[in-house]
């Protein structure tokens, strides 16, 4: 069934009811469209509060939509919530584990919520516990944050989901555990599981996702394959310049007027220049200053450049 559309969102909107303070309610998701096929990996990127998790909660059928239309696995989340949830796995941003229980008990109880029989759970446990090294009978309270994260991920697989929703899956994991997880997700994807994840790491997005959507303020502001997004929006080098207090604004204006050849961004503590040629920009900046304020007592700006 490859090519089948599993998730289809049109003009999806979510407004949270007003809480103390704002009278209107908060529009966390503001009319977004996307479509997902079987075995596809889709990533949401974006700053804190962009509405990534809010979007995922709609797809997971644990939060009613306020506007637009949404189909998941060919069903309507408002009507067929339990059925959709039975075929979806969710890794929430905060783990929500039962801390007083052991790793094994957590997996067992969660499996029972899906109505799975003891025998089926026992069979699946063997495979899932591999993600947790030798911690099967340890109490969750005593686990490190990274281990808890792995348990949350193992838990989400207990019902062998067709769609897996992961909210910042590798936050808090060490590099090795991250690769173990990426490997696992990659295998799932090959088995035809559709992945939807949010992340703050560009490398993770690039590794795992076929397509990315960048969200900001509840809207999708850019969409495409990782490669396309990088080609369209990322310059080869990023030049960071630090100036003595008070000179920063002048310097950034001068850089802009001087036609540095990239985007210039003024931040509280530094000026950032996005350019394809950092050396040229640096030379120009030095030139700007020496020609216009020869008596400046400033030292050379510190410089970091990174290539992608």
């Amino acid at each position, binding site marked *: 069934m490859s090519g089948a559309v599993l998730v289809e969102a049109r003009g999806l909107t979510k407004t*949270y009811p007003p809480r103390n303070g704002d009278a209107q309610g908060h529009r966390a998701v503001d009319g977004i469209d996307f479509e997902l096929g079987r075995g596809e990996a889709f990533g949401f990127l974006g700053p804190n509060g962009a509405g990534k998790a809010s979007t995922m*909660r709609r797809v*997971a059928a*644990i*939060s*009613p939509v306020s506007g637009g239309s949404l189909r998941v696995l060919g069903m309507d989340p408002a009507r067929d*919530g*339990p*059925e959709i*949830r*039975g075929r*979806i796995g*969710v890794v*929430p941003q*905060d*783990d*929500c*584990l*039962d*801390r007083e229980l052991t790793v094994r008990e957590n997996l067992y109880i*969660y499996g029972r*919520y*899906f*109505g799975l029989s003891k025998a089926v759970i026992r069979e699946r446990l063997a495979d899932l516990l591999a993600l947790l090294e030798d911690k099967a009978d340890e109490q969750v309270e005593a686990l490190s944050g990274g281990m808890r994260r792995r348990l949350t991920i193992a*838990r989400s697989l207990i*019902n062998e989901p067709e769609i897996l929703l992961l909210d910042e899956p590798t936050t808090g994991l060490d590099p090795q555990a991250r690769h173990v997880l990426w490997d696992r997700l990659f295998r799932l994807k090959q088995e035809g599981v559709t992945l939807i994840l949010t992340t703050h790491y560009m490398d993770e997005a690039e590794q795992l996702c076929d397509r990315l959507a960048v969200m900001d303020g509840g809207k999708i502001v850019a969409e495409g394959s990782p490669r396309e997004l990088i080609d369209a929006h990322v310059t080869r080098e990023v030049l960071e310049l630090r100036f003595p207090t008070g000179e920063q604004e002048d310097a950034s204006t001068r850089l802009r007027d001087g036609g540095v050849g990239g985007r210039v961004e003024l931040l509280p503590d530094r000026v950032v220049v996005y350019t394809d040629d950092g050396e040229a920009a640096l030379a120009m900046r030095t030139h700007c200053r020496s020609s216009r304020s020869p008596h400046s007592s400033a030292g050379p700006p510190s410089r970091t450049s990174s290539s992608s």
Partner: protein
Amino acid sequence: MQTGFIEGGGRVVAAAGWQGSYRSAATTPLEPAEIMAGHLLFVAFRLLTSNAAFVVVMAAFGVSKGWWVIATLPAALLTGLAFATPIAAWAVGLRSPSKMNSAFRFVLMPMYMFSGTFFALDQLPHWLRVAANALPLTQGVELCRSLSLGSATSLEVLGRGAYLLALAIGGIAVARLTYRRRLHP
């Protein structure tokens, strides 16, 4: 009442909030109303077991007369649920346990004092006695007491039982809404 409050109040705030037990259960096929029902079953279990312990002690010391004491089990269960369900309906929407603590101090404790649990209501002035009689705890206490002493009339049992049942069912009806609102925001 106390068991109903603890298991249906503080524990619900924790499960809906920092503990996350409700949030993780909500991602499974379970519906909010089923999660609520599961929690209330647990409350009922706690009520029955702790009441059973009371009954055993009462029987051992010969406080109660005859087999009627067994009838206090459902009566005490009903009393506990009449508190637990409305409290759970309220607690599930709370973001922190501080309001729950205030409710205990300013609502539950005074009710405890004026419900005939510790002293007979005849000692109160008339108007206060009327008010105290309307308290759900008074109804529950009188129901359990008369049953355990074997002095209950069927009219009294029906009246008090219906009052408590109405509270318990009303609590469930409201909790169905508040659980959905919190678990499926």
